[in-house]
Every structure is written in C-alpha cells, then in structure tokens.
C-alpha cells in the first residue's frame, strides 16, 4: 500500500478499501523500519498523526464531503510552524521551541484533512544542498545511503523516495525543493513566488523563499499544490488571484503545440554526461509527444549564483537576528550578572552552525554602509536583468527547461568543506527564485555512469504554474511507458538488510 501514489491512496480511502488510520499506521511502520538508515525525520508525531487519521475516518463515516487528499499522510519540512509541535529548522537554536500557532500551509493541510506524520530533516535554516548542515545529523539518500539526498529539503525528498510518506512539503529559496527531488528520483515544485503563503515559514530569504509540494508523481504534486496554494491576507507578498489549474493540467498532460525552450546557458560545461544524456532523451520524448523544442538564451544567468549569494545572505542576516535567546529557543550563559548582550552573543555562538554563521557574516558585510551599493544594490540589478531574460525567453517559448542539477547525488562529506562547490549545485535552480517564477523537477531516469537519478527542470512564467504540470505529466507518461515501471522501483528496498 505504501508504494501507491497519493492519488491511488485517496481513491482507496474514498472507496472504503482502507482507512486513514490503517494507511497512516502503515507509513509509521515503514518509518520505524527504515528511519535508522535514512534519518528523514526530526520528529515523528505518531500520536498526532493517528488522531488526525481517526478524525478523518470519522468524518468519512459520517458521509462528510472531504477534500481529494483527505486521509493521506504527509511529511512536513521542519521549517514550517505547526502548533504545539517541535519546529527546529534543523538548528540547535530552536531546540525545544513549540510554536503557539500554525503556519498557513499547515492550516491548509489540516483543513484538507491531510495527515501530518512529522517534521523532516533539513539543512539548518534551509541553508545548504545536502542536509549535511542539519544540527541533528545528515539524511541519507535512499538510492545510496552513503550519498546526500539533496538539500535543504533532503528529509522530505528522502521520506518520499523511501516510501515513508507519499506526500511532502518543502521550501525552495534557491533550489531546496527541486534539487532534492532531482537526486532522489522524486517530483518537487516551487510554485510562483506568492502562490503559496509564507506565513509561518521560518524565513531564510524572504524575497526568495517559497513553500511547495513534493511527491512521487506529477499528479500527486498537483493535488498537493492545489491544497496549499491561494491568497493569504497574512502574507503581504501573497498573490491575490485564482490558483492555477494545476490538477487539470497534470491530468491532461498535453504538450501538443507547446513551445519548449532549452536554456542554452543551463546545459553544457560542468554538467555530468549522464545528466546531459537523460536530458536530451527527455527532449526527444517531449518532441514525440507533440511539443516544439526551441533554444533560448538567457545571457544574465551566469551572474545569478553570485547575485543570489549576496541577496539571500543579506536577508538572512536580518531574518535570523530575532534568534537572540530573549523570547524563545535556546538560551546560553544566562548566569548571575550576565548581560543580555552577553547571553545573546553566547547563544548565537553556540546555537548557530558554521554555514549559518558564514551566511550571516556574508550578509552583514554586504549590507554594510559603503558596501551596500557594490554588493546588495548590484545584486538587485542583476536580479532585474535575470527577470528580463526570463520575460524575453517566455516570448519565445511557453516553458523553459534544463537539467535540475549539474550532477547526480554526491557523497556525504564530499563537498562539506568546499562551500563554493556546494553552491554550484544550485546553478540551474537559482534563476527561477531570482525571478519569482515557477519551477518543477521530475525524474528523467538514471545516469549511466553511476545509476543515480537525474532531474529534469521545467520553468513556467509567473502564475502560469499549470504549464509545467502539463509538460511534466507528458514527460512522466512517456518515460513510464519507456521504463515499464516507476523509476523508484529500481531503488534499493532498504528493508533487505534487516
């Protein structure tokens, strides 16, 4: 049952073939049996999940009208506030904090009766591409436990790939949904900025952060997308417009007559041969399905990474200032006679990890008087240029595509001491965040040289998220008929060693 898609699970729940309690219990059992190898979760809410499942079953028994995903379990990235449940953001500084409120995403999940299994591991404050920056130890890639599951949302992607959960929520600031999806053979979508409320999403970089749906199929992702998207008056940057019809697009999977633009600058040097091979193959399949493949150029993308590493740390340096030991979370050095300043200093020294400190320092520097124009100011100009590149490209194509990442999953520890190499992993995903548009990663197959999953990225214009679902669903269908079975069937079962 746990290897079903979420849509299949929902159908079984609706027909009475199973109950949400049984389904939830099956996932909790799976978590129990593989978690010591994967470490996808920071908190498993066994009691809360079963209670929620029982309440959905009771509603169904009473004949209440339920939402499409009611009763299906989900793994929640630990960066979203959930009332009375631990929310750490992968950081020591928030250890023990119980939010007194629900993020809007969590409120939407609850409203849709989606069962929350627990909170998933992540790079501290979503800063990283491997979950190695979690203060609570790394998550392992179910395809190869010695490899990273991507980051920052590696816990969510690993939970999907190891069948611990059929649905997950991620957040994406520079690729934290899409890159983990790519390296674990799962699907992840960063919706248009403002499409899903950020209220209750613990901020890393406010102008780039976006929560989004993750699953094992394009349709499942779309179903979750519609459950969490929509205008929220509590988020001033939320878009007040109808939610794009992503479920319909995923069901139709129609690319006939669509123009698909290959971004010249995101495919070439530095991309692993197996990644390029799978990407080219996917393009052929899309052409066969009736799409027109064109090449587009985005000359300013080459500055995206540099600009990103000024904007994101700048905003982070300010967003993370609130962790000062005064009102919640860790407090260190609060002994007689210690000043508030000393306690703040010590707490932040002990509570933040190396990468977080690196970015706080970087951001503080970039915003400093005298440097602002050269760094933050210039980065914002680059951002405008990237947005213009996209605008122009979208006049030539309905969606843009690229490999999601230059490589397949790397080994745990391989890039831990080389931040620049780590940052380069996000080179193809970052432009999407800079322009606030939508981006999807879905599996394109395995790289021949290492047998690891490769991600295919689809980018769609602002609030045209349905386009990436059309293309994604078409490609998924073509690949499935080529493979004969879902890609994840080829991943290790994990339980064998037991």
């Amino acid at each position, binding site marked *: 049952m746990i290897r079903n898609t979420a849509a299949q699970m929902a159908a079984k729940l609706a027909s009475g073939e199973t109950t949400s309690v049984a389904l939830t219990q099956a996932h909790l059992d799976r978590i129990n049996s593989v978690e010591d190898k994967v470490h996808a979760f920071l908190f498993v809410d066994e009691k809360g999940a079963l209670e929620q499942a029982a309440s959905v079953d009771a509603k169904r028994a009473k004949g209440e009208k339920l939402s499409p995903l009611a009763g299906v379990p989900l793994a929640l990235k630990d960066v*979203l*506030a959930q009332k009375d449940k631990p*929310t750490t*953001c992968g950081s020591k500084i*928030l250890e023990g*904090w119980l*939010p*007194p*409120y629900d*993020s809007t995403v969590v409120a939407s999940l609850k409203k849709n009766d989606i069962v929350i299994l627990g909170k998933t591991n992540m790079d501290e404050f979503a800063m990283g591409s491997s979950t190695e920056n979690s203060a609570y130890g790394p998550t392992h890639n179910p395809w190869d436990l010695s490899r990273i599951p991507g980051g920052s949302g590696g816990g969510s992607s690993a939970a999907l790939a190891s069948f611990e959960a059929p649905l997950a929520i991620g957040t994406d600031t520079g690729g934290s949904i899409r890159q983990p999806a790519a390296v674990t053979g799962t699907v992840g979508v960063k919706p248009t900025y403002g499409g899903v409320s*950020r*209220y*209750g*999403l*613990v*901020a890393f*970089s*406010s*102008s780039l952060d976006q929560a989004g749906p993750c699953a094992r199929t394009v349709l499942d992702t779309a179903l979750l997308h519609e459950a969490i998207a929509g205008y929220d*008056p*509590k*988020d*001033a*940057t939320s878009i007040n417009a109808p939610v794009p019809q992503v479920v319909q697009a995923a069901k139709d999977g129609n690319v006939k007559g669509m123009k698909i633009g290959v971004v010249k600058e995101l495919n070439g040097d530095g991309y692993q041969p197996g990644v390029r091979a799978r990407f080219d193959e996917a393009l052929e399949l899309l052409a066969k399905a009736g799409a027109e493949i064109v090449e587009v150029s985005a000359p300013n993308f080459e500055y995206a990474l540099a600009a990103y590493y000024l904007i994101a740390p*700048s*905003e982070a*340096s*300010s967003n993370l*200032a*609130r*962790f*000062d030991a*005064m*009102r*919640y979370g860790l407090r260190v050095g609060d002994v007689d006679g210690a*000043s*508030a*300043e000393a306690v*703040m200093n010590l707490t932040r020294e002990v509570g933040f990890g190396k990468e977080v400190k690196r970015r706080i320092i970087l951001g*503080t520097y970039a*915003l*400093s*008087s005298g440097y*602002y124009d050269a760094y*933050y100011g210039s980065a914002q100009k680059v951002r405008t240029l990237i947005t213009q590149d996209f605008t122009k490209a979208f006049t030539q194509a309905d969606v843009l595509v690229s490999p999601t990442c230059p490589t397949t999953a790397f080994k745990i520890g391989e890039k831990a001491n080389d931040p620049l190499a780590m940052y380069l992993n996000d080179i193809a995903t970052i432009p999407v965040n800079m322009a606030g548009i939508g981006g999807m990663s879905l599996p394109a197959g395995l790289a021949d040289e290492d047998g690891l999953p490769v991600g295919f990225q689809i980018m769609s214009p602002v609030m045209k998220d349905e386009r990436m679902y059309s293309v994604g669903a078409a490609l998924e269908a073509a690949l499935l008929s080529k493979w004969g079975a879902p890609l994840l069937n080829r991943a290790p079962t994990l339980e064998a060693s037991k």
Partner: protein
Amino acid sequence: MSLTYEDVVAKYEPVLGLEVHVELNTESKMFCGCATVFGAEPNTQTCPVCLALPGALPVVNEKAIESTIKIGLALNCSIAPFSRFARKNYFYPDMPKNFQISQYDEPICVDGYVDVEIETDEGPKKFRIEVERVHMEEDTGKSLHVGGATGRIHGADYSLLDYNRAGIPLVEIVTKIVPGTGKYAPEVAKAYVAELRDILRSLGVSDVKMEQGSLRCDANVSLRLIGAEKLGTRSETKNVNSLRSVERAVRGEMIRHAELLNAGGRVVQETRHFQEDTGLTRSGRSKEQAEDYRYFPEPDLVPVEPDAAWIEKLRAGLPERPSIRRKRLQEAWAVPEKEMAAMINADVLDIVEKTVLLGADPTKARSWWLGEISRIANDKDVAIADLAITPQDVAEIVALVNSGDLTDKLARQVVEGVIAGEGKPSEVIAKRGIKVVNDDGALMAAIEKVCTEQADTAEKVRAGHIPAAGALIGAVMKETKGQADAARVRELLLGHLGQPTS
C-alpha cells in the same frame, strides 16, 4: 564661568533640528491585529507577529497609512506615489525582530512646512519650520531595568520586557535644519511642537499626550559663531516630555555648548537625555562613530502606492488648521489671548465651541468649562470629556441662569447633579427641588425673621452702616436654602431697614 543666556546669543547663532515621534491612535498595531490600549497588563497585547516568533510576517495597517497621509497633507507635504518600508537593523532586547521596520530613503511624505508665531521684542513674528519628511515606523517594546543606580541597562540586576508597545504605529516628523531663530530658538522649538500637537489633535490621529509618550520630541541643537557658514556639531536631546521641557532643553543645550566652545573645547556628537528635575541633559550614546543600521528594503512588504484620488479625498476632508481656527474663534468670542491659551491648555476649545453653537454666551460657556467643570474633573482626576456633562447641558444651564430661573449658585448645584449622573439639568432641578425663590412675600418673611434674630446688626444697618448688611443677606440666603436671588434679597433688606437700595 557660567554663562548667561544673553552672553550665548550675543556670540552664537543656534541651529535647531526637531524630530517628533507620534504614536498613532489606531485600534490595532502597525503590522498585526493586536490592540493598542495604553496601560494594559504587560505582554497581553501581543501575537506571533509583534513578538517576532519564527515564521510570522508583517502586514501593513491601512488605517496607519491613511493617518500618515493626513499628517503629511496637514503639514503641507507632497505625498510620494511610491514609498517603501525598510529594515533598520540593530540588536536590542526590547526590539523583538532585532530590526525595526521603518522608512529610509523612500518616505511617504516629503517637503512640507509649519508656520508658527511667537511674541518677540518687536511684536508677534512668524517663523517657517520646513519639514523634510514624515515617515512611518513601528514602536519598540519597553524595557524596565531593575536594580542598579541609573535605571539603565548597564548595571541593572535584571530587566523586564513588555512588548505591548512593540509594533504600535509611529510617525516620525523630521524638520530640515532651522537657522535664523536667534535668541528665540527655545520659543520657536516650543511653538513648533505645540503647533504640531494641535494639528495632530485636530486630525484625530493621535492622543498627542507628551506625558504618556504618544508625542515625543528629540531636539537637535548646534551653535555656530554669528555670521559663520559652517554648522557646529549637534547634540540630540531625547526624553523631552512636555512643551516646557522642549524650551528648557534647547536653552540648556545652547548654554552647555557655548560654555564648551568658549573654553576651547568641542561639542561631542551624541544623544543626551533631558532631566526634568534639573533641566539639564545627561550624556547618552555617542554618535561620533555613526551606527551602521544596514538598511535595506523590507522584503516582507510590498511598496506603498496610494491612489491619487484617495489622497485628494483625504485632502478635502482635512479639518480647519488649528492656528486659523483659534484666531477665528478668538475674534468671534472677543477673548483675551491669555484666556484663549488657558482654553487650549485645558483642551476645552472644542467643547466650548459646541456649547456656544448651542446658543450659550461665549464668556459664560468658557467660564463654566474652564472653571467649575474643570475643577470637578481635576478633583476626580478624569478628563473633562469623560464627565457626564455635555455642551447641550451647559447651554441649557446658561439659558436658565439668563432667564432668572437659576442663580449662579443654584446652577452650580445643577452642574454637580448632572455630573453625578442624576440626569439632564431639568431632571436634576426637579429631583433636587431646586428653584429660585422669587416670591417677595416669602423673602420678606425670611428678612423679618433674620432682622429679629439679629436685632443688633439690623440696628447698625438702620443707622447707615451698610456693610453690616452682608451678614444679614447671608443669613437670609441660608434661610431660603440658597434658592433666593441675592441681589433681590439685598434690595428688599435695605428697603426694609430704610436704606437706599442702589
């Protein structure tokens, strides 16, 4: 070596700069829905947003934007079609986010002015104070530092934090530098803050209570030698909590600067705290090394782009400028300057005007509100507006006195009754059985009774010693329970004792 003020202004020219912070009286905070009631239990008016819990986001209070635009318009500013919020980053325990959402290089209102008039040696003189900008920001929480000698964070045993004030909408009004006031700098500063207070009050956007901190003034002062171009180093005095203190603080700083300069020293650029008891300032934070607030546009908020039609609607709805209204009323009522000032200080101008519009004589309306009613409000320690007496009631009472149905003394009883909640004036009169005794027969009976009881005094009056009549009149008034018209009593009494009655 202590200098007199005259010595200072003979040698130096003061240059002012005034920053006024106004707490808006919106129902809810600047970026969340929390209440803003003054004096509530600590930390009861807070939520995830104003406590800066992880994940919480600000949303702008539209009403606060409206109030700020009104202020800008009333101060003759232009309203920016596009303005933004920015983050001002610094760590302090009473600032939950460790940054303040403010406006930096893109404020909502710019380039205005306020005219004030003060008395000078050459008569009344007008000064124009140019307003550089009016911008929105949020207030911080309050720290209470317990223990230690200074009540400041350094040296305190521990600190208590109250976040009720955190996030209350603040408007900051910043002047350009104000040269050319010469020896009148302290008066001009005071007049400016007073005028600002009156304008804000007329707009109804703030309580403007300096003692409660809803209006706060920072006074920047520098001196330069008369005739010099270059500005001197300024000090910034905070904690100036009354109009009088504004004047004292400016004067005090001018003298302090001059003493330093005369002694060959230099003024340090710093924040100073005004001390109400001594009228002096105490050194605070040095600003020699400009603090780096790392401002950048607030990414959680969208730009403020007020609709031109909305701005025009707000402009059309602006009330009459207080200084103009004051002049108009003063002329119409023929009130001396001092009395006018008394009414403004007691905050009764509106209520007196309403009473006059209901038909009361301006002098009488003023004397009731400023006299008896103010006294009762004072005794009860409440605001006049909170008393259960309305302009309608006062107008009615004044009319009854004019028609002779009440004496002044009886009218006071009626006022008391209305304030005590006994009802409208007519109801109080009925319930208390208050009426003027104007039946001469009844008065004569009382007069005869008193003259018999106090035969010696009556005899003195009969002998022509008129002043002795006072005691007899008093006794008659007592006999008639104060309900008689004292003038009529006097007339009848003197006639009774064979004395001329005029």
